[in-house]
């Protein structure tokens, strides 16, 4: 009787430990799951990390979408970084070029990386970049400046309720990471 209880207890403990360990693993599995989920739904406002093909679906001239540009610099990053204009109005399908200005105000050479984000998140997957400086890393020598082009269009399939979207770029200092 005592022995069978002990055995039952051990089996149960083992099962419960499996639950604990697999839930610990599930916490980590949420990281790639979230990425996949966001890739499909555009939930987190991340845009495609690769250049899109030129639009050949035609231009929907009946609609106008306002695209706002904002730039952020992370703390410790001593560059200037701003869009040439704050906002453009585009028809879905129409290709536009907007330039961003970056200047390394220090006297040493530095590497920067910009990360884009689109709000509202559901619009992110319809925002197509044909050419973007965010696809590569920027290397600027001391006091060097550069105008960086962004060529984009908005997929005409974009839901009707989106009339305005905001594209935000955050500039990170990756000099240390590249060197190490």
């Amino acid at each position: 009787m005592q022995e069978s209880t002990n055995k039952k207890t051990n089996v149960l403990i083992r099962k419960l430990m499996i639950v604990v360990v697999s839930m610990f693993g599930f916490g980590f599995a949420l990281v790639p799951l979230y990425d996949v989920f966001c890739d499909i739904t555009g939930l987190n406002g991340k845009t495609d990390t690769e250049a899109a093909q030129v639009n050949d679906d035609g231009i929907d001239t009946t609609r106008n979408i306002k695209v706002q540009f904002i730039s952020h610099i992370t703390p410790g990053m001593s560059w200037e970084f701003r869009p040439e204009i704050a906002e453009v109005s585009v028809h879905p399908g129409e290709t536009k070029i907007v330039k961003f200005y970056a200047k390394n105000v220090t006297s040493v050479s530095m590497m920067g990386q910009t990360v884009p984000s689109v709000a509202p998140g559901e619009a992110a997957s319809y925002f197509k970049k044909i050419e973007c400086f965010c696809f590569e890393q920027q290397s600027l020598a001391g006091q060097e400046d550069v105008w960086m082009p962004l060529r984009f269009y908005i997929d005409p399939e974009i839901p009707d309720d989106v009339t305005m979207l905001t594209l935000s770029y955050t500039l990170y200092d990756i000099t240390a990471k590249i060197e190490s």
Partner: protein
Amino acid sequence: MTTTATTDTDMAHDDHGHHGPATGFKRWLFTTNHKDIGSMYLWFAFIMFLTGGSMAMVIRAELFQPGLQLIDPDFFNQMTTVHGLIMVFGAVMPAFTGLANWMIPMMIGAPDMALPRLNNWSFWILPFAFSILLMSFFLGGAPNFGWTFYAPLSTTYSNGSTAFFVFAVHIMGISSIMGAINVIVTIMNMRAPGMTYMKMPLFVWTFFITAYLLIAVMPILAGVVTMLLTDTYFGTSFFNAAGGGDPVLFQHIFWFFGHPEVYIMILPAFGIVSTTIPAFSRKKLFGYSSMVYATSSIAFLSFIVWAHHMFTTGMPLVGELFFMYCTMLIAVPTGVKVFNWMATMWRGSISFEVPMMFSIAFVILFTIGGFSGLMLAMAPVDFQYHDTYFVVAHFHYVLVTGSIFSIFAAAYYWLPKWTGYMFNETLAKTHFWCSLISVNLLFFPMHFLGLAGMPRRIPDYALQFADFNMWVSIGGFAFGLSQLIFLAVVIKCIRGGAPAPAKPWDGAEGLEWTVPSPAPYHTFATPPKID
């Protein structure tokens, strides 16, 4: 449920003299007795309650007047953070585990917990966890990023306390997981013959379900703090956008743990009042099986509502609607419970002993907290309420007047069984009325402050909030002092008083009342018979 007392055999068992309590400090250090460990959990929880409470006093003192008077904003942030962490992980959860340790074996007719040595260990690592957390105050500053430790506040912008915080949380998590495994094994394997699942007291049921929630989500918490640790110190980028991570992912993982966690802190409270209300209404609990099903459905729903904490993170409309409706669905099983308690009292011959007073206060005030929760569940409205004092009012109504009032009800209900003496009723009633009045003065005006737009976690505020904040602070100090009355009642009750009979409450039911008061060191060495 009729029960047969088996106390005679227990006494005989004790007379053999084996396994009596050891003497001195070693009794507590090496004990594997569920009653000793339960008592230690309860004392530890009370000490933490006073520790976290004194931090709340510091917060309320600073907020007594607008402007910065006493402490600087960084220390204020440390106070709000550590207050939250201590109250959640140090006060409420250990208090419930203590009650479970004391009562579950006695309620199901088991001689002890199934894994007594593990039990000892899960208690004794807790003081170390909280020492590490509190130590950080003296080593460069305690965590100041809120108890929710959102990245990047806890990674990029941390004041260096992240490592202390992470190790403390790991230890607390291990303790909770071991405690939960112990409870599940005890309940599944050690019930007395005849104690079927649907005959178990509701406190046992609710803690059984809580234990499952614990083993499901505490590992997630352990995982997320580990990611935080590697992000801060080892260069990973789980939550760092520069490296391809996403700070919003942190919030998803955290709240996937965090929402079940809030039910971990309230389900045992449902079990407690489902025990006390029938006892003092002298009626059977109305709708026992619906209570069990309601508890299970709340536990299930708790896993699919986490993003209602994140309505303002820019979710798509479909997501907001899904989480909004799922959240509102929780009101259904919770409503079932509230109506069952009311139906239990309906036409009962109610008497107002102190545990009953706390239980009735629980039902009313928890319902207020539930309703403000329903308001917060509405996504469009939440944009207005988010991060205001309305949220603070909501979760303090469910945690203080909910969980903590239920713990007081449980303590008063079982104190005679634990100590063998009746507590001083006048003093206990004073504790109740002082707590009830001050707690409402403390938390009710916070609703108005929040609706008027006062943000939470800010050491200063606009002038128009001054009057309400002064009242809130006065309520806070009064509530804090009232808890010293509770300490006095408990100490007096341990030292003496009118001897308690085996069953001091005439309407009480359950196996724990079939053993004498105080409960002998070993109970139910021979399982009781249950028909």
